[in-house]
């Protein structure tokens, strides 16, 4: 199958072929022209493919073979928590009573769904140490924006409308500043120090009466725990700002430290990371937001409440920021996350973090002899290496990533965070065995040797994939974004 083009489904289309089986038309029909004005009756039928059912299965099976998933092999993509996606989650999400219920049914007819959501919220409250949780946000970035809108509403209702700035570390995810902008804030960057942690002096410098919030990932994107978190919280709180926790790295601290106890006022979680909702090739995710008590009034509506034995949706929330999404969030993903939490229990979640952190430290130590280790201290669930040693030999981090494809691995995150040169960010997760880690380490060591002995082998990689390196400049300069006959 190497170097074989997979035709587009449109290129396999043959007029007259069908792949569907619609219900019988068991009523008397009327001429369409009697029901719709002429100019609203479509003339040209959309040119969708005309293929048989087997054609479709062959097409998508062929495409799936050209795709690397977590089940295909190791996927140490830093900051993305590519852990195993349990299959029971998929089964449960497909139960008819979860998959085929309508969000606008009478609440009495969906008590099971509301109970699950309520119980998931209870679990997430305990896990994060927050006072209340909303499941409405659809993904991490959506949760960030929701959380910032809550902070904005809080400040505004205190008459504090001059708090226009959100502080973000230079190592933050790109979504942090973007979410701040969409929520109407200006972003201020706080520098990291030589240890990879937020520079406290710089934080003191940028914080002030215009500070709405500090957004922080802890451990940060370098995989390092911000050990000055208590002091940082104090600085921000003393200035009247709120502390926002980006939950992307929660897998590092389950049962070890809760955002709520660290002083955070708002938290978002990525249920598709820590809590195994599958990544789906880029979504759907789920990004619940947890808050401390003083922010509860502003939560998106409706909120789920327990009234005796009954679960109800409360829309009477005068201070709510409003809706951030129709209905109640990505319920299907929330079902998966709930199933996962119930499969693990408290001691299971504790072991998740311990094993994830052991795996990351083990890999870091074994690779430190071959790659530059910018921050030599215990990491949490992930760590960063720098490819600057290899760069001097003419081998870029991008080349190393592409060479890993030849070994059957998905490469780590590269060139992020931005404050590390030629960055390689590795997150093994707890679901990988030592044997898998060792094989990957050996591949990385071999590539380091190749960089010295046969650099062109790395520079020209990948050699075994269905397609070579693609011309991204061409794609952007002359965009072709759809098929045309």
């Amino acid at each position, binding site marked *: 199958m190497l170097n074989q*083009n997979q035709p587009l489904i449109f290129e396999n289309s043959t007029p007259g072929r069908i*792949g*569907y089986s619609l*219900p019988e038309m*068991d009523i*008397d029909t009327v001429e*369409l022209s009697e029901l*719709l004005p002429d100019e609203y009756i479509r003339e040209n039928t*959309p040119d*969708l*493919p*005309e293929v048989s*059912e087997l054609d479709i299965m062959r097409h998508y*099976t062929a495409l*799936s073979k*050209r*795709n*690397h*998933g*977590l089940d*295909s092999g190791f996927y140490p993509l830093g900051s993305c928590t590519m852990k195993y996606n*349990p299959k029971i989650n998929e089964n449960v999400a*497909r139960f*008819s*009573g*979860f*998959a*085929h*219920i309508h969000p606008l049914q009478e609440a009495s*007819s969906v008590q099971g*769904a509301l109970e*699950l959501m309520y119980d998931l919220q209870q679990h997430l409250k305990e896990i994060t140490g927050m006072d209340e949780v909303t499941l409405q946000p659809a*993904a991490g970035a959506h949760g960030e*924006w929701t959380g910032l809108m809550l902070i904005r509403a809080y400040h505004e209702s205190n008459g504090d409308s001059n708090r226009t700035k959100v502080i973000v570390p230079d190592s933050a995810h790109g979504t942090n*500043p*973007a979410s701040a*902008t*969409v929520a*109407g804030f200006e*972003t201020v960057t706080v520098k990291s120090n030589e240890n990879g942690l937020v520079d406290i002096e710089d934080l003191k410098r940028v914080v002030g009466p215009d500070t709405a919030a500090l957004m922080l990932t802890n451990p940060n994107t370098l995989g390092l*725990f911000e050990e000055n978190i208590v002091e940082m919280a104090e600085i921000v709180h003393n200035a009247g700002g709120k502390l926002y926790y980006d939950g992307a790295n929660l897998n590092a601290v389950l049962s070890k430290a809760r955002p709520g106890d660290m002083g955070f006022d708002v938290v978002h979680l990525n249920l598709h990371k820590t809590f195994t909702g*599958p*990544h*789906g090739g880029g*979504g*759907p995710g789920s990004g619940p937001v947890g808050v401390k008590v003083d922010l509860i009034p502003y939560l*998106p509506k409706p909120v789920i409440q327990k009234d005796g034995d009954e679960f109800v949706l409360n829309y009477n929330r005068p201070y709510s920021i*409003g*809706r951030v*999404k129709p*209905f*109640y969030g990505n319920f299907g993903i929330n079902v998966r996350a709930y199933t996962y939490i119930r499969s693990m229990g408290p001691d299971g979640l504790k072991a998740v973090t311990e094993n994830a952190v052991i795996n990351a430290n*083990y890999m870091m130590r074994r690779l430190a002899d071959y790659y530059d280790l910018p921050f030599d201290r215990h990491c949490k669930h992930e760590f960063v290496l720098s490819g600057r040693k290899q760069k001097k030999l003419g081998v870029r981090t991008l080349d190393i990533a592409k060479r890993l494809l030849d070994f059957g691995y*998905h490469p780590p995150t590269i060139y992020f965070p931005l404050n590390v040169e030629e960055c390689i960010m590795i997150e093994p997760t707890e679901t990988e065995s*030592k044997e898998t880690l060792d094989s990957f380490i050996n591949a990385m060591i071999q590539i380091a040797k190749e960089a010295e002995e046969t650099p062109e082998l790395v520079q020209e990689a990948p050699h075994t994939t269905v*397609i*070579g390196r*693609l011309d991204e400049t061409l*794609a952007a300069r002359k965009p072709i974004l*759809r098929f045309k006959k």
Partner: protein
Amino acid sequence: MRMKHRYLPMTEEDKREMLTQIGVESVEELFSDIPKSVRFKGEYQIKPAKSESALLKELTKLAQKNADAKANVSFLGAGVYDHYSPVIVDHVLSRSEFYTAYTPYQPEISQGELQAIFEFQTMICELTGMDVANSSMYDGATALAEAGMLSAGSTKRKKIIVSSTTHPEAKEVVRTYAKGQNLEIIEIPYKDGITDLEALKEQMNSDVAAVMIQYPNFFGRVEPLKELEEIIHEHKALFVVSSNPLALGALTPPGNFKADIVVGDAQVFGIPMAFGGPHCGYFAVTSKLMRKVPGRLVGQTVDENGQRGFVLTLQAREQHIRRDKATSNICSNQALNALAASVAMTALGKQGVKEMAIANIQKAHYAKRKFENAGFEVIFAGPSFNEFIIKCNQEISTINHTLLNHGIIGGYDLGRDFNELKNHMLLAVTELRTKEEIDQLVAEMEDYHA
């Protein structure tokens, strides 16, 4: 005692070896950088773990507490629909190469996903009559909100007009986003079930960035896009249409009426209702607005050997590059659901999408006539897709309660959103409803006409 779990492969021996390699005595040392004052002590007070079979049993029971649309007959729509979903959709979706993959940032090993999205973009363009479609948004409502932000950014204007015939929850989402951007939202009333054109004309001026119209609208009616377009473009505002893409199998697409942005939700194509999500927003624009589209775009290119391939492209628009200069913060989208929609659209194909759309119009029309014959007043009657409104003589929730006892999930209570529409029920009749089911609904409801 070691925690044994099927998802955790680390043995005691592994752990010993690894800790030795790391150079620590115990796992606790790895957490010594967490200040004592914030260390969590003890265990989470959450439910204990359950075995696979016990958990399945418990959750099966929980799911059974819900009245689902497969065990019952549903006439509830209002933005989420019970449609024919080809069984192959779930077979494709269950291929773990798709659902366990991350965003296709490494194109050499993600050609399958990238090509599938490229095909999705093409199909959305075909349905909407637009030039460019992105790889998906969270849902139709947030896509509409993002269309508002795009419009404000692109026209440098601060007012957004929304027709009151737009989905009430979508309007709320638009308002929340608008607050973040300090945009003013003006709602235009409806007249006879469609956007009041005269009221729109009165509000139009050079401060208006965009006008948002739902087609078919929340009441099921076909909006007069032709007349709307003239009013909107006269003031150089952007014409934003939120559209049920299935309806576009039979209705003239918004692109033909010179819409600038078309958004909506592809839930109608192979995506289960799932209590409201995850669904699949889509976002389509004219080529003029191509570089302002939020979210991910897949483009075609070639590799070093000239072979065709696909990559994420025009990423300079996106949050991970632009950071605080980005106009949208979307990162994760609904890729897997876009795949589901693609498979369903492929299965339906050119003929099926038209046939299915027309079946909705015909069956809804049949039901409408049936209700009229039973003495019901059908309000806002006129060209419509698969929904219509009947006037009842009592609380809709009371009626729905009775209907559910007969295995029927009744329509939407419009009194929830419109004071003037108390005791009015919005009914959806899709291609799945049989004559027998429709007749039964009318029979069960015969005492409720006003």
